[in-house]
């Protein structure tokens, strides 16, 4: 059929996928420490360059692929989805167990049933045994976790103060230190939900003296509604344009070809 039709369809599907990402960003405007996602839209020839060795095409040549997909060369696809780790604003909460991180590349380390994860959401609380946990119940790990294997423990009546390096004091005495994980390449993190990121061992190192922890503050999301709205406007207008292209192919050109060319006059 007409390949221009498929190009427009592919482009429209890409815009719908982009709309999914924008809607997720807007839905999370009030989520603590949420980092916005964005997409990079590339065309097929760019993606082919990166993956041509894996394609099951004889000789792995571009002309072989082009022969099969002659005009799909330029159909846009989402080639890369990335997370923007810019810092959001800090909101004062006056809760001594709320911590905010002031640097982009540091995280708290938590233990979940699925393994160790990192998070930037510092709204912690004490569980029924007095251990420091996140709001979902995952244990927040101390700086010496890999040596001692103990969790951070407080009595309910303790007044906890913290300094800028993540040291926790009870009545002026040092009780525990939060594990501050520095991620070397934030692009290698994957979002898992519940404010958690999955990381790989070589990407994480412990950081002492970070001087970037604020007690009593919560970090809000870094979503700028102006950018998301402009993205929504763009997506909607692009989908409208592609719809015009598609209907031109099908309703106008094809219908003319069928009706007028093959018209048999009695």
């Amino acid at each position, binding site marked *: 059929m007409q390949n221009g039709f498929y190009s427009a369809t592919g482009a429209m599907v890409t815009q719908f996928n982009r709309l999914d990402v924008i809607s997720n960003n807007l839905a999370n405007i009030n989520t603590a420490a949420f980092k916005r996602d964005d997409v990079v839209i590339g065309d097929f020839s760019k993606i082919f360059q990166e993956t041509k060795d894996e394609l099951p095409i004889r000789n792995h040549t571009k002309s072989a692929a082009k022969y099969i997909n002659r005009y799909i060369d330029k159909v846009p696809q989402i080639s890369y989805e990335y997370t923007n780790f810019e810092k959001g604003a800090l909101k004062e909460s006056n809760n001594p167990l709320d911590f905010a991180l002031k640097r982009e590349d540091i995280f708290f380390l938590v233990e979940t049933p699925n393994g160790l994860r990192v998070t930037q959401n510092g709204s912690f609380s004490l569980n029924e045994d007095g251990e420091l946990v996140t709001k979902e119940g995952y244990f927040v790990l101390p700086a010496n976790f890999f040596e001692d294997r103990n969790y951070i423990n407080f009595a309910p009546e303790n007044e906890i103060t913290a300094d800028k390096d993540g040291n926790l004091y009870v009545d002026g005495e040092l009780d525990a230190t939060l594990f501050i994980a520095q991620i070397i390449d934030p692009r290698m993190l994957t979002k898992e939900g519940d404010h958690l990121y999955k990381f790989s061992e070589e990407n994480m190192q412990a950081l002492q003296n970070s001087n970037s922890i604020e007690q009593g503050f919560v970090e809000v999301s870094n979503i*700028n509604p*102006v*950018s998301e*709205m*402009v993205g929504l*406007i*763009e997506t909607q*207008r*692009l989908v*409208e*344009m592609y719809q*015009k292209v598609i209907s*031109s192919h099908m309703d106008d050109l094809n219908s003319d070809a069928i009706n007028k060319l093959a018209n048999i006059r009695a």
Partner: protein
Amino acid sequence: MIRSLYTAATGMKAQQLQIDVTSNNISNVNTIGYKKQRAEFADLFYQTMEYAGTSTSITTMSPTGIEVGLGVRPTAITKIFSQGNFKETSNSLDMAITGKGFFQIELPNGDIAYTRNGAFKLDGEGNVVNSDGYRLLPEITIPEDATEIAIGTDGTVSILQAGDTQMNEIGQIEIATFINPAGLHSLGDNNFINTTASGDPILDIPGLNGFGQLRQGFVEMSNVQLVEEMTDLITGQRAYEANSKAITTSDEMLQTVNQLKR
């Protein structure tokens, strides 16, 4: 797509920053020693479609070019170090600097911070400290039996001890100035530290060589003028609205384009 969509978006983000700075100034209008900030913007850059002076024929050239601007960006948020108003407190350890200079404070990690906040107190051992307990440098210790403390305009600290009829000088306060005070890094808590942009601190006795004098019993309030800040809020909000109008206009024009084809 249409350039104006993205240009107006940069305009809205810039006005958001302006309102952020203004609201910070307003929230600190009663903070002792606060210096107001001002956001400055510059145009982003231009796409040149035709350079000025391109020749239009063998003998003539175009007098202007065609350059389309692409929006606005923030270039600086400067701290304005003008003098704030004085408030009389009659507290013997409150000091205000009339003119240039900063008090030196020792942070817990040993670094020196600088501040205009002159509301000092005594700690349990008689050292002169600020509200967070950080010591004033050079260190001054007031003995237990001092009944009066006098601080001269040149920073000399004298006390009257019980049983004496004359005041004894026990210390000298030195203040610091910088070549570029706007280059200081704000730590929060009314404190600044020096950076390569601000230059190294120059220490001297208050009153000499253009340094400001000290006034005991006064504190320097913020230099925020509420009238200016209210005006900035109004202009910021209206500029935000105007930019949003540009975005909706671009949207409607795109809609018109799409409706060209039935």
